[in-house]
């Protein structure tokens, strides 16, 4: 067996917000090329996991490793430089900037102008609706369009690992399908993704593996196929 270290390794990670223990000893690995789904209901600690990986919140215990290198001493900007792109909960597009400027800022750390232009075109072909609205202020886009912009902006960093926090939130079922289809395409083309979702059904339809969080602990993990069959999960998240 070849023992390539996982791209991302989370070991016994705990995060506290004051007296609230939001993550309690999380173990998680993401290997290159995988699409891993992180599931769980409100307040389970999903966003906290992503915020810890991108160093927005301090860890109170445990370790984080990127290809074997410790991530904990780094600042957020440095994790982006390493290749981690975090598309945050609630889209957070820059409302006062145009679609095009939002995308350009996604490539802030890159200096290969030609490559950035190629990726801009790639984003516009991935999300044609953004191409039509490239000169519009991002704040004037619909919720679905803002979600697409947020994903596209994260892709502009050409990340090794893409962290997505509930991309389906607030989208109509048709749009959920469209966004998930895009993520599946990215995955097929070799993109590594860690996908946080409450919509377990949609996420497990495209994921390789999944974990279910409850109150900051992993209560279930397995291949996407196994999880789709799991009766407990079906009862709590898949509506029967």
């Amino acid at each position: 067996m070849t023992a390539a270290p996982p791209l991302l390794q989370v070991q016994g990670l705990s995060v506290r917000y004051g007296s609230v223990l939001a993550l309690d000893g999380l173990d998680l690995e993401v290997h290159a090329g995988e699409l891993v789904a992180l599931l769980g209901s409100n307040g389970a600690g999903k966003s906290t996991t992503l915020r810890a990986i991108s160093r927005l919140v301090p860890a109170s215990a445990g370790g984080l490793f990127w290809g074997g290198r410790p991530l904990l001493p780094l600042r957020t900007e440095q994790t982006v430089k390493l290749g981690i792109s975090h598309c945050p909960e609630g889209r957070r597009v820059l409302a006062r900037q145009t679609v095009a400027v939002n995308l350009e800022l996604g490539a802030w750390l890159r200096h290969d102008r030609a490559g950035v232009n190629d990726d801009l075109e790639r984003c516009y072909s991935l999300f044609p609706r953004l191409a039509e609205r490239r000169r519009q202020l991002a704040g004037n886009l619909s919720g679905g369009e803002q979600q697409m912009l947020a994903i596209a902006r994260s892709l502009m960093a050409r990340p090794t690992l893409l962290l997505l926090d509930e991309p389906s939130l607030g989208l109509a079922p048709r749009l959920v399908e469209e966004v998930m289809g895009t993520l599946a395409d990215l995955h097929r083309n070799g993109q590594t993704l860690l996908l946080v979702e409450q919509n377990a059904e949609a996420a497990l339809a495209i994921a390789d593996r999944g974990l279910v969080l409850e109150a900051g602990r992993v209560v279930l993990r397995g291949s996407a196929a196994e999880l789709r069959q799991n009766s407990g999960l079906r009862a709590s998240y898949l509506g029967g």
Partner: protein
Amino acid sequence: MDTLLQILVNGISVGAVYALFALGYTLVFSVLGVINFAHGALFTLGAYLTYLGVGGAVGSNGALAGWALPLALPFPVALLLAGAGCALANLLVEAIAFRPLRRRGAEPLLYLITSLGAGVVLVNLLQIAFGAEGYALPADALGDLPPVLSLAGARIRSVQLLLLLVCAVVMAVLTVWLERSRGGRALQAVSEDAVTARLLGIDSDAMVRLSFALSGLLAGLSGGLVGLSVSIAGPYFGIVYGLKGLGVLVLGGLGSVPGALLGGLVVGLAEAAVPGDLSGLKDAVAFAFLFAILLLRPQGLLGRPPISKV
């Protein structure tokens, strides 16, 4: 009674300086959501540095009595160096009065105290070094330019034209930089949503420092220009400007760049419209006018709804 043209010229040239000065407040406010109360002191520092730069000597009451630079620089060079000095000084203010609080996630109100304290210390240092007396920049600081031009019955001092020119150029460059350049857009991104900016890889601490440096530069330039056109009344002369700049900032709409410009012009014109024999009431008129506008438009002339900050 001044002609309308005279009032316009006087008002616009003073207003331009107010705008330049208020823009400095705006830059820091839009990035951090707090006001740097040391800004008026930096304005004073800019005036003194410009005075030294053009070869002025320290008066007899200061600790540095009699001291002067070995050479007299041309006014534009002295002004630029004074601006650069104030940029550095404001970086120091950021490191001492802002960064430690920011690290701890302190209440915005606390910055008011720490920055005010930094300003007071700076003014006191100036007083120790230069004494409490007033200074005037040498009359020939502008070289061979005639001191006064006449145009359609209005007396226009060449200093006023210089004020207008410098303010217009600086503001145009700053606006284009903010709107069009990579760095300017990154600064705006931090100002809109610092967390998201960091997730894009933008070093928001570096952007905060940049905004302080630019803000200090603007304070220093406006201080040097006012020193030339009026004179330096003493170490405390930045205080009135500091308050007026705040008024302009609020009037224009907190954090709005075109608002600072408009606010500066409005206050400048309001003052210039006060007849010469009532000139002691200038400040009162300016603030009364400000008060009246804010009653009608509490968010300022070009203000926008508040957004979340760092």
